[in-house]
């Protein structure tokens, strides 16, 4: 199946708002975990997400540690083997998933609410994050599989480009390293490191729980109490260091046999709690965030046919998340595509959007609000984000009014404050002939 345009596989800015925002119930458990719950009774199912402040930004000089710890949880727990744990979910039709990013590491369970199915699935999940056994043989296997995955990344120009961009933007900051780790860090990793990481970060005070589904408040409260039995309160993870702004422009060229050159341009962008968030969100929608309608899409694809995909986004995080713009085109056209992208970014920072563009963007964002929360899985995603980043409970209710309030001048000022077109990192991966490989300071 081919889609007209690749969507970006990350949650950009979460947006939503009007009509019927879900009613969010919030409470804190005795041990300090924060719970966000939305009742939906149309389908006999429930989605649960446990998000620990245990992402790769906590790797502490050993890249890959957070992700490996997250993976290892279901490899044996409470005396159950990995096979027994897998069957413990799948025999019931339940779906378990885990993931680790920069800011958090999460576990997800989707189950029917029939107590005969839900109860044993929950007990299985409880063992996974409260009593992991961390068997040695699983660790060796998973380490070896991650090393294979690292090789797979080496053959993907897109992965090479994004790893390189992130490393250049973040330098010494914990956000710099790849979530999977590096060959060196994985070779150096010991089971003791994983056990220590688990003990420190997988604790109630470091946990946000999001629940959406066919339960009432009492059932959800009981579910959480049962689920957290045996999880120590622990301590909240310390704040991450701030991200330093870039001091100069940099261009990185990486030689790769791909026919296309992948081009990424980036800089540190914003934190999730930044007051400029809405002007930047609406502004970026116009620059490169609006799907089949944006300045980059118009200039790179529609006018010139240079590329299949082009986009820009701010990725707000606990600390300053990246601003990234990207495209890919065959080698002969790479310089042209890069020049146009930089020009468009520069122009937008200098002049901001037109009144017509702003009006159209607002119509899209506010008119499309109901789409953003039209399923349990969408609501779960917002709930988890609101919880993990400590956003106000009325985030969804006020979303449209905040979008409406944005002015063209606010966008221009916010872009100029956050982005410096003279200090951008550019990464080009492909057959970059005629130019020396490596890093060039311009």
């Amino acid at each position, binding site marked *: 199946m081919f889609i007209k345009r690749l969507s970006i596989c990350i949650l950009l800015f979460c947006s939503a708002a009007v009509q019927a925002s879900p009613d969010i119930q919030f409470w804190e458990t005795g041990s300090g975990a924060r719970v966000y719950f939305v009742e939906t009774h149309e389908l006999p199912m429930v989605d649960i997400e446990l998000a620990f402040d245990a992402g790769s930004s906590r790797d502490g000089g050993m890249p890959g540690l957070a992700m490996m710890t997250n993976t290892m949880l279901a490899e044996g727990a409470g005396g159950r083997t990995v096979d027994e744990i897998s069957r413990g979910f799948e025999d019931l039709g339940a779906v378990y998933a885990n993931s680790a990013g920069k800011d958090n590491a999460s576990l997800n369970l989707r189950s029917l609410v029939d107590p005969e*199915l839900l109860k044993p699935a929950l007990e299985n999940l409880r063992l996974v994050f409260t009593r992991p056994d961390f068997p040695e043989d699983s660790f060796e296997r998973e380490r070896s599989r991650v090393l294979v995955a690292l090789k797979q990344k080496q053959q993907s120009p897109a992965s090479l480009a994004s790893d390189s961009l992130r490393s250049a933007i973040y330098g010494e900051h914990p956000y710099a390293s790849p979530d999977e780790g590096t060959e060196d860090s994985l070779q150096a990793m010991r089971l003791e490191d994983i056990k220590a990481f688990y003990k420190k970060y997988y604790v109630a005070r470091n946990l946000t729980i999001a629940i959406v589904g066919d339960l009432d408040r009492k059932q959800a409260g009981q579910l959480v109490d049962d689920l957290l039995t045996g999880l120590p309160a622990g301590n909240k993870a310390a704040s991450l260091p701030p991200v330093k702004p870039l001091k100069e422009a940099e261009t990185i060229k990486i030689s790769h046999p791909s026919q296309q050159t992948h081009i990424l341009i980036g800089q540190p962008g914003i934190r999730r709690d930044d007051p400029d968030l809405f002007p930047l969100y609406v502004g970026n929608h116009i620059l490169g965030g609006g799907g089949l309608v944006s300045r980059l899409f118009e200039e790179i694809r529609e006018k010139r046919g240079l590329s299949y995909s082009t986009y820009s986004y701010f990725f707000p995080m606990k600390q300053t998340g990246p601003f990234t713009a990207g495209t*890919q085109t065959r080698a002969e056209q790479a310089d042209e595509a890069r020049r146009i992208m930089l020009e468009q970014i520069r122009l937008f920072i200098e002049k901001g959007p037109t009144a017509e563009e702003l009006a159209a963007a607002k119509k899209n964002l506010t008119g499309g609000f109901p789409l953003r929360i039209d399923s349990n899985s969408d609501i779960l995603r917002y709930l988890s984000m609101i919880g993990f980043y400590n956003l106000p409970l009325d985030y969804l209710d006020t979303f449209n009014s905040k979008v409406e309030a944005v002015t063209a001048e606010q966008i221009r000022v916010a872009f100029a404050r956050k982005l410096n077109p003279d200090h951008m990192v550019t990464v080009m991966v492909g057959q970059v002939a005629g130019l020396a490989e490596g890093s060039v300071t311009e």
Partner: protein
Amino acid sequence: MKILHGSAILLKTLCLGLALNTAVLAETQEFTLDNGLKVLVKEDHRAPVVVSQVWYKVGASYEVSGLTGISHALEHMMFKGTKKYAPGEFSRIISENGGNENAFTSSDYTAYFQTLEKSRLPISFELEADRMRHLTLPADEFAKEIEVVMEERRLRTEDSPESFAFETLMATAFQTSPYRQPIIGWMADLEAMTVDQLRDWYQRFYAPNNATLVVIGDVEAKKVLKLARKYFGPLPSSEIEPEKTLPETEQRGIKRVVIKRPAELPHLMMAYKTPSLNSTLNNAGSSPAWEPYALEVLSGILDGGNSARLETNLVRGKELAAMISLDYRFTARLGTVLTISAIPAADVSLDQLELAIREELERISTKKVSKAELDRVKAQVIADDIYQRDSLFYQGMVLGIFESIGLSWKHADDYVPAVKAVTAEQVLAVAKKYLVDDGLTVAELEPLPMDPSAKRHATAGESDYVH
């Protein structure tokens, strides 16, 4: 347990991971307009949202040699203007109305969709009806857009060793079936394609009597029908000339192919010829109608989660695979394949890996699966049937796919009961019948060095397909 569309390997590179199952759609309502447009409506009042999809019965498997990729190229051009709306206006109007939209092309169908706040359904209908019959196909827009499509091919296929190998696997497994052709088309065909060819293709397949309109969401079926009559009703129907699809010639022995590309990792892909639901029902009597469902259960037992056999025995257990996955294209329009794709663990050869996979297949072909395994797959199918109703879009996909491959959407309703009725004996029977060497094609991706000087040699021409 997967209703698959297109190649699963390609799908996994997309966000839109729609490899889910059928849902029981008992409340679906069906209408047919006088001009032949089929209209399917399913009310789902959970949120004030509506999904509208227009499905055309055309895709890569309708194409002939020399014209590969034309269905997909035309899909791109459907955004490039009509007599009434200039290029890009379609997307601009949908965007201003808060909509999400896109389109996709598979081997068996081409579909266009919008998701909108429910009151804006007429906007979608007006625009879709307009481009069903009034596309202008300007030559200057085509000249740019075909470049975009070629960039898309570079992105997805040329620069992805795994996709490239998968394309070769399909082109090798199928000898006469159009499934040998890539959806995006061969590069040489894209380079030679003309806007007049697209115009002919459009005239031939884009008509109300070759389309299905699927609407899911917070709507009333009767009002949707009224709206559909208003906007699509006036469109003239066409005489749809039946396409002449060559049947796949019977394979009589194992086929092997090696693909050399710059890559870091070797990759093993195996394809076994199998019937699909539609090919079974279309050749009544050739094989029992339960076979495709038994193949679904077999797929679940081998690859339906972390507790399935391939993951348990080959990724864990023997630790010979770093990654392994299986796909069976249950909803293919024509006879299809069951594919297994695997990356060996470190220091494991492709031969060792293939041997181990074949041992697993041998086991399932000679010994009945356990009751526990059968029960697990059925529990998953029953649960998935509920989970899938969380997505309006997916519910629409199911209806659209079944209609477009030539089966009634009503077959979607049979899915859960038919899977529940599958016995261990039936799983054994389909394993024995279809997991055989005579229907097998094996493709090996053999990595060349990533060094660019070696690469330049390897890609000196477009003719480096190794068959």
